[in-house]
């Protein structure tokens, strides 16, 4: 009897057919992007390597994840807020029990989670930090001019997925199937946009860091 217009019908649609479509676009897009990037590789370097590539590559993946003092001095707001919400997003995504169950349901791998109230707090902080980044972007004269539609789109979809998750967990939208359906729908938008926008950095940031480190290593400079 249900249609898309009723909350349970909407939830089942987002959990079923729409999730299938979103994850297919995500997998297809990400597979294509990563294969293209990895197969194109770097320009061949014919010079004799001075040292190995792997260790410096891996080291840079780690060191570039930590903010360097110079950047912090120049843009403390960007570093602090950026770090807070990225960490918050990762905690909410990977350490919230229902998300762990989702990943376990899809791939059979799981890990321990964190208590719900802690994830809830982290999510609230993430939301505030994300809102702060938008205010900063809108008020900063340089960022204002640098920002494109894509930047705002990526911000919106990230904010939306965290916000709907927060509202669903705290049961602030009723009935709950509607709240959960909205959260899943925004996560699907996120998944669909991921391979085709700068959200791809979730995967490529580490590849880029490795390339940098490997290149430093090969030339024998500090990585």
């Amino acid at each position, binding site marked *: *009897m249900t249609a898309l217009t009723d909350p349970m019908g909407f939830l089942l649609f987002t959990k079923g057919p729409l999730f*299938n479509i979103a994850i297919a676009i995500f997998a297809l897009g990400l*597979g294509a992007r990563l294969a293209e990037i990895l197969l194109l590789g770097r320009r061949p370097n014919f010079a004799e390597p001075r040292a190995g590539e792997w260790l410096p590559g891996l080291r840079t993946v780690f060191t570039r994840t930590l903010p360097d003092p110079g950047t912090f001095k120049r843009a403390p707001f960007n570093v602090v807020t950026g770090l807070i919400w990225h960490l918050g997003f990762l905690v909410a995504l990977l350490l919230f029990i229902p998300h762990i169950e989702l990943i376990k*349901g899809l791939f059979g791998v799981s890990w321990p989670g964190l208590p719900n109230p802690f994830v809830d707090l982290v999510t609230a902080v993430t939301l505030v930090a994300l809102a702060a980044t938008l205010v900063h972007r809108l008020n900063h004269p340089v960022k204002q001019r640098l920002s494109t539609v894509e930047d705002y789109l990526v911000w919106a979809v990230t904010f939306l997925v965290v916000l709907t998750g927060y509202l669903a967990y705290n049961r602030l939208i009723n009935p709950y199937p509607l709240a959960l359906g909205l959260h899943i729908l925004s996560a699907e938008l996120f998944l669909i946009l991921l391979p085709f926008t700068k959200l791809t950095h979730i995967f490529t940031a580490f590849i880029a860091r490795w390339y940098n480190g490997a290149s430093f290593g090969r030339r024998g400079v500090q990585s």
Partner: protein
Amino acid sequence: MTAKKHSVGEHLRDQGVSRRTFLKFCTASASLLALSPGLIPALAAALEQAQRPSVIWLSFQECTGCTESLTRSHAPTLEDLILEMISLDYHHTLQAAAGEAAEAAREQAMKDNFGRYLLIVDGSLPGPDANPGYSTIAGVSNYAMLMEALKGAAAVIAVGTCAAFGGLPEAAPNPTGAVAVMDLIKDKPLVNVSGCPPVPMVITGVLAHYLAFGRLPELDEYHRPLAFFGQSIHDRCYRRPFYDKGLFAETFDDEGARAGWCLYRLGCKGPSTYNACATMRWNSGTSWPIEAGHPCLGCSEPRFWDAGSFYAPLSVPTGLSSTRILTVGAAGALIGGTVATLARRTVETAAASRQPVTAAELEQTL
């Protein structure tokens, strides 16, 4: 049939029901319907004066679980009492008459009480476009019988998830073309008392409300009485503190299960299910599924049979395998690989056919 000329009060006295029992019933009903205690005397007076309504109970594609739920409890109960308050003129499982006599009783009751009788339906029915032969009573299709009975009904109560939402018969691939009662009723007051089966007191609560106030209770968007379906199982669950603390049973016999922790990871649909089990419980308030250690199946929600495994957590998508995701990912990689190869070939071709240009030649083109 003569009994229905009596008021509810007179009938109860005839049946030997004491005033005290009657008032206890009124108190319980007021409490169930979330009415103020000040309304109990008014409810008692209204019920006392009310004429016993004729009730026609149609059972279609159902398993009789809903009737069992209503009747199979230890007597005397409040559920029994409500049955005394109505004149159940047709219920082919409960009535003594059979065959043509039973159908004659239904037709007579419909004629005598035209425009006033309550129509209760349990079970879904093959829709108007489906083969009517999938479910018939006395050679009459369920659809034809419902349409006939609807004409003189004052209100309709769809009892159980099959009648309310289609339930099991409507589950994919719905071989009988089953539909819910509300798919067919547009111009009569309708209450859905969903659940597989519904909590007995919810059925009686709706009847008591109708008897006392002459109208149906306030409903949610699925036409369910808000007094019973206004809050989710999760919000009223006694195991909720464990959810909030992040303490979950992960198997049915681990330490968490024995300690009574939250059953979310075992597939509990409590967060998305609206029903009164957590507060009213079952078997005269003895227990309820979650208290017995089993996750909520979400049986009072539409399409609960098609909402994925009962034992998959609520957050897990339905009908998806990792193999399919990886296959699509591999297909993507193939596309990416092809694009990369083409790009590389374009670069190589360009490099091979590159013509050196001198500064003088460039200047000529300006």
